[in-house]
C-alpha cells in the first residue's frame, strides 16, 4: 500500500458576491462544496469536470494560492493550515509545484531559459550560480532539450518545447507532487502524445505524484490511476481509472464519457442516436439546484432527486453521489 501523500478533507470554498458602494455581501458563489480525496505517492489523481465545476479552485487551494472557507488539507497526515509560514516555506512549498495550461503565458518573456528554470533554486537555495545552471542543463536534458537552450529566450521555442521547459521548471526543487492544470490541451495532437509520454516517464523515474486537471477524458484515462469527476463544486463520482471507465455509475459520468467517445457510425446509422446528449447547461454555482445538483440535466432524475441531497455511497471500489445506488 503506497503512502498517502496529500489528502483533502471536506474542502469548501465560497466566494462572496458583493454589491453597492458598501460592498455588501449579497450571496456566495459555492465554487467548491465538500470535496474529499487522497493522493498516493507515485500515483496520479485526475480531476475532471467542465468549466465552473471547481476543479481549478481545488488546485489553487492545494497550491495555497487560495485560502479555503473550511475543510483541511493533510500533507503526510498533518494539517497544512497549522504549519507556520516558515515551515510551509521549508517543507511544503518546494515539494509541490505546478504546470499551467498555456506555455505561452507561464514564462517571463524577458528571462533566459536558464533563469526561468533556475529561478526557484535561486530563491530557495544558496547554491552558487554555476551549480544552479548545471542543474538546469541536467533538467533540460531530462525533458529532451539540449544545453544550447540555456541562453535562449522563451519566444524562440515552439509550444511543445515550451511545455517541456515548464515541466523542467516544475521539477527544479525535486518536488513530490506536481499539479498539472490542463498540461496538454493547448498543444497540437502530435505534440500532446510526446508530452504525455514524457510526464509518465518522469513519474516512474522520480516516484512523483500528479494531480492532473483535464476535461479530455481520453487524456485522463491514459495518464491517471484514479479519477474524480466534479460537477458544480461537488464530487459526483470517484474511483480507480480502469473500473470507472469500464463501469461508470453516475449519469453525469456516463454522459461525459459518451461525449468524448470516438464513435464511428456504422453504414447508414445516425451518430446522434448512440450518444447521450445532455440538455441544458451547467446551472450557476451562485444558486445551485436543490437536492442533487445534477437533477436539472439528468435523464433519470426522479422526484427524490430534486428534494434530497444524495449521499456519497460506496459501490465496489467506486464512490458515487446518486440516489439510484442504494
Amino acid at each position, binding site marked *: 500500500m503506497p503512502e498517502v501523500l496529500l489528502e483533502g478533507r471536506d474542502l469548501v470554498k465560497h466566494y462572496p458576491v458583493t454589491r453597492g458602494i458598501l460592498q455588501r455581501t449579497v450571496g456566495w458563489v459555492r465554487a467548491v462544496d465538500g470535496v474529499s480525496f487522497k493522493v498516493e505517492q507515485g500515483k496520479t489523481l485526475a480531476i475532471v469536470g467542465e468549466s465552473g465545476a471547481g476543479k481549478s479552485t481545488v488546485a489553487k487551494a492545494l497550491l495555497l494560492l487560495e485560502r479555503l472557507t473550511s475543510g483541511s488539507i493533510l500533507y503526510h497526515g498533518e494539517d497544512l493550515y497549522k504549519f507556520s509560514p516558515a515551515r510551509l516555506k521549508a517543507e511544503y512549498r518546494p515539494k509541490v509545484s505546478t504546470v499551467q495550461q498555456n506555455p505561452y503565458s507561464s514564462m517571463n518573456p524577458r528571462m533566459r531559459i536558464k533563469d526561468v528554470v533556475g529561478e526557484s533554486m535561486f530563491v530557495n537555495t544558496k547554491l552558487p550560480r554555476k551549480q544552479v545552471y548545471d542543474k538546469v542543463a541536467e533538467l533540460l536534458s531530462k525533458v529532451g532539450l539540449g544545453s544550447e537552450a540555456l541562453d535562449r529566450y522563451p519566444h524562440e521555442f515552439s509550444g511543445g518545447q515550451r511545455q517541456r521547459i515548464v515541466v523542467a521548471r516544475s521539477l527544479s526543487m525535486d518536488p513530490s507532487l506536481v499539479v498539472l492544470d490542463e498540461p496538454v490541451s493547448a498543444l497540437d495532437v502530435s505534440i500532446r502524445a510526446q508530452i504525455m509520454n514524457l510526464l509518465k516517464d518522469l513519474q516512474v523515474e522520480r516516484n512523483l505524484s500528479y494531480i492532473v486537471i483535464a*476535461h479530455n477524458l481520453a487524456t485522463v484515462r491514459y495518464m491517471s490511476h484514479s479519477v474524480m469527476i466534479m460537477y458544480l463544486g461537488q464530487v459526483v463520482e470517484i474511483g480507480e481509472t480502469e473500473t470507472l471507465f469500464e463501469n461508470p455509475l453516475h449519469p453525469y459520468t456516463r454522459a461525459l464519457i459518451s461525449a468524448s467517445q470516438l464513435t464511428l457510425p456504422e453504414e447508414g446509422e445516425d451518430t446522434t442516436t448512440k450518444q447521450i446528449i445532455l440538455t441544458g447547461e451547467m446551472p450557476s454555482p451562485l444558486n445551485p439546484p436543490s437536492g442533487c445538483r445534477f437533477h436539472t440535466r439528468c435523464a433519470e432524475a426522479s422526484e427524490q432527486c430534486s428534494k434530497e441531497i444524495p449521499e456519497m455511497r460506496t459501490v465496489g471500489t467506486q464512490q458515487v453521489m446518486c440516489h439510484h445506488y442504494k
Partner: protein
Amino acid sequence: MSEVVIQVENLHTSFFTRMGEVKAVDGISFSVNAGETFGIVGESGCGKSVTGLSLLRLLPEPAGQIIAGKIFIEGKNILELTKKQMRAYRGKMISMILQDPLQSLNPCYMIGDQIGESVRLHQDLPENMVEPEVISALRLLRIPAPEVRLKEYPFQLSGGMRQRVVGAIAMSCRPRVLIADEPTTALDATIQAQYLSLFDDIQQKTNVAIIFITHDFGVVARICDRVGVMYAGRFVETAPTREIFKSPKHPYTQALISSVPKLDKKDERLFSIEGQPPSMMRLPPGCRFGPRCNLCMDICKEQEPPEIKISDNHSVSCWRVK
C-alpha cells in the same frame, strides 16, 4: 448524386513577409456537395484556417494573397468577382463560424440587431419582416425563447449560447456553403456534443454544404462525411470518414490517429510523432512529412510524391502507396 456546391481547384495562398514568401496553402483541390460535410483536419500552422479565409476572400491583404487556383461556388468562380460583388456573396452564399464566439460578437449590440444586420444587408425585406426572419434563424439553432433572447446582449449568454448566436448569424441568409473553423474548441465536452448535433439538424433543414475545420479526430468521426488531412499546406490524404479511420494509408494520417489516446482501451504508451511540423518558409525537399516519417525512403527525400487515387474518393500522396 447531389450537386456540387463548392469546388476548389489547385488553390495557392501565400503570405508575403519581410522574411520571404510563406506558402500557407500550396495547391489544394476539393469539392463539397449540397448537404455534405467535408472535414479539414490538421495541426496548427498547416494552413487549414487560411484555406477557410481564402474561400471567403477575407485574407489580410496585401500580405496574404491567393496567387493561383479557382474557387467555384455554384459554378461561378468567385476569384473573378470584384470586391463589391464578393461582398454580396459573403453571408448570402458562403458564411463562416469562428472559434471564439466572444470575439465574433459585438458586445455593445443586442443579438437581435447583430443577426438582423446580415438579414437587412442581403435580403430585400420590409422592416417588419426582419424580426421574424431573425427569430427563425434563432429557432434553426435551437435557441430557447428566441423572442426574449433577441433583446439580450452577448454577456448575458453562456458560451454555448453565444456560439449558437454566431451560428444563427452565419445561417440567417440560408447560405449554400458554411465554413466552420474550430467552432467547438472553446466549448465544454457536454456542450460540444450538443452543438455538434445541431449541425446535422441544420443540414437536414437547409441542405447546406459544410466545410468543417478542426484538429480533433473525435469531432471528425462524429459529423464529417469526408475528410482531407492537411500537412504543411497540402492534403496528404482525402477519403470518406469511415475509410480514414478503418484503413488510413498515409503515414501521417496513421500516426495522427494512433497518437490520440483511446477511451475504450488503455495503451501503456502512446505512439508519438517525433519532431515538429516544418517551417513553411523552409520546407524540406521531397515529401514534406519525410523528416518525421518512420517509413521514409530515399525517393521521399528527393521527389515530391504524386497524388494517387486508390478509389473514386480516396486519394493519397505517398511514395509507399502503389
